[in-house]
């Protein structure tokens, strides 16, 4: 891990050794520990670990194929495979708590009640430093994607705010203008924002026989979305008075610096982790070298 005093950041009261986190769902610290061994803990690439999004019940994930390689990016339809809240608390949390960095748990549900159940249960765990709300899914009652509707997002954040003292990070979606959504969530008690999530995309099969992905559509990520992400990060950072974690195609220290200059307090690395397991620490080092 990088120990550079001048890279330290304070994110909602959480001390981070440097500003590089992982994007939810793009690094499985438990699997990586099993594969690479304890050296992963000694050289942990990120200054905080964001878990894969967990849902109330276990999910197997989407049928394959789940990945399509875009030019300078990837379209994924992974489908949030996870053990569900119970499985997460029992099996994953003890191992994630052993990581050398603060833990942020990402949660998603399709109703405010289910979200409340997740937040309440996770809020009780001292191992967790903050909660990230993945609001890229529709509320089953209204059919509206929570992260695309200022009203939906405001009412969800208000309902969850009273349930926890832990910082609530709202992960914004790039599918709609994130500024009104962020402003509504700020008024309702959010502590920070992270953006962007992936952009909806549906690649066709090169064989000409329909859609490529087993789930038909997925989310686009990687360098190809960087400029769009920079514009959205800058717009949100200008509009709110809360910290912003910027992401979308960060692959180098120079990319990370662009996001910080656009107003982000920290950055997250997603797809680049697939190419380089140590992308997080490399990017932090490159950022330090840039001065």
């Amino acid at each position, binding site marked *: 891990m990088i120990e550079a005093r001048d890279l330290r950041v304070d994110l909602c009261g959480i001390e981070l050794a440097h500003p590089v986190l992982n994007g939810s769902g*793009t690094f499985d610290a438990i699997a990586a520990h099993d594969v690479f*061994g304890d050296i992963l803990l000694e050289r942990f690439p990120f200054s905080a670990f964001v878990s894969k999004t967990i849902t109330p019940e276990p999910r197997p994930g989407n049928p*394959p194929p789940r990945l399509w390689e875009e030019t300078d990016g990837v379209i994924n339809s992974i489908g949030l495979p996870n053990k569900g809240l119970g499985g997460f608390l029992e099996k994953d949390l003890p191992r994630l708590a052993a990581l050398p960095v603060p833990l942020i748990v990402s949660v998603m549900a399709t109703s405010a009640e289910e979200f409340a159940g997740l937040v309440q249960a996770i809020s009780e765990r001292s191992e967790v430093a903050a909660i990230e709300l993945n609001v890229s899914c529709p509320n089953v009652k209204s059919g509206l994607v929570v992260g695309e509707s200022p009203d939906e997002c405001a009412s969800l954040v208000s309902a969850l705010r009273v349930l926890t003292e832990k910082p609530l990070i709202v992960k914004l979606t790039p599918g709609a203008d994130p500024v009104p959504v962020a402003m509504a969530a700020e008024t309702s008690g959010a502590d920070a924002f992270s953006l962007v999530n992936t952009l909806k995309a549906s690649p066709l099969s090169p064989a000409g026989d329909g859609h490529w992905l087993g789930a038909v559509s997925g989310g686009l990520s990687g360098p190809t979305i960087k400029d769009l992400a920079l514009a959205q990060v800058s717009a949100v950072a200008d509009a709110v008075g809360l910290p912003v974690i910027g992401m979308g195609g960060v692959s180098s220290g120079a990319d990370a610096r662009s996001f910080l200059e656009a107003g982000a307090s920290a950055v997250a690395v997603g797809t680049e982790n*697939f190419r380089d*397991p140590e992308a997080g620490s490399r990017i932090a080092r490159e950022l330090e070298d840039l001065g």
Partner: protein
Amino acid sequence: MPETALGDYTAPPFGRRPLQVVGSAASGAYRLVEVFDPSGVVPMAGQFYMLSAESEWPGSSGRPYLPRAFSVASVDVGADGVTLGFLVHAVGPGTQRIEEVGGGRAGSLLAVGPLGRGFAAPHEVAAGAKGAILIGGGIGVAPLALLRRNLIRLGVPSRVLLGYRDADNAGGLDLFDCSEIKLATDDGHAGHRGRVTDLLERLLAGDDRGSAVVYSCGPPAMLEAVRVMCEEAGVACQLALESPMGCGYGACFGCAVPLREGGYMRLCLDGPVVDGSTIARADAGAEVQ
């Protein structure tokens, strides 16, 4: 570090490291690209590396972007490191770029690995099994070449059956000792005209089948035929599967393969070598041709 072992797993060094290209030679329609790994980590047969090139990756057209998975086909253990051989079949931008860097002999490849689970020894797969039947198709011969060498060194008898579509899609034979190989080709340019599974069918009909384990790697349809034939014959089999891998170390969840009991496994963690009895089908979810 043991020079040869059959077991299923050797842990990789952490991170992505540049490995110098030290050799490159045509092997039929494929190319054997050799790199030198000073870490000295000796992979098991069936394990793979995620490879990319230092330059032009992403290429000027934006692909290849993700690293590509390659089975290790040969291993030479030296005093200060190991030489790893990868058999490459150029089918798209990623495999073409790896071939290009390999052909230049001056470059290096970025590697993460060895990754995944390799083949286990016959007696570990089935109690009482003493021999092995290796059946490969197309570029799937790559991991079997290393398996075969390891079996020979360990004194485990094995038979090798290799199948190819036609001469333009055949290679890697020089990695085996040819005298012992039975060939099948769809176009009949060499060996039996027909499917390599025809040869397996004959072997499985023989008397000694109970004492052998079948090891296979190749196109999904061939693997599925092997799986079904072994199941019907009551012979244990280990299959090296393929699925689209984005990372190779459990980060992306892209490599899902359906399990017989329901749900999915991540092939990069629980494979690529799997026991035939654990999967629903060997051709589900595989993207390849």
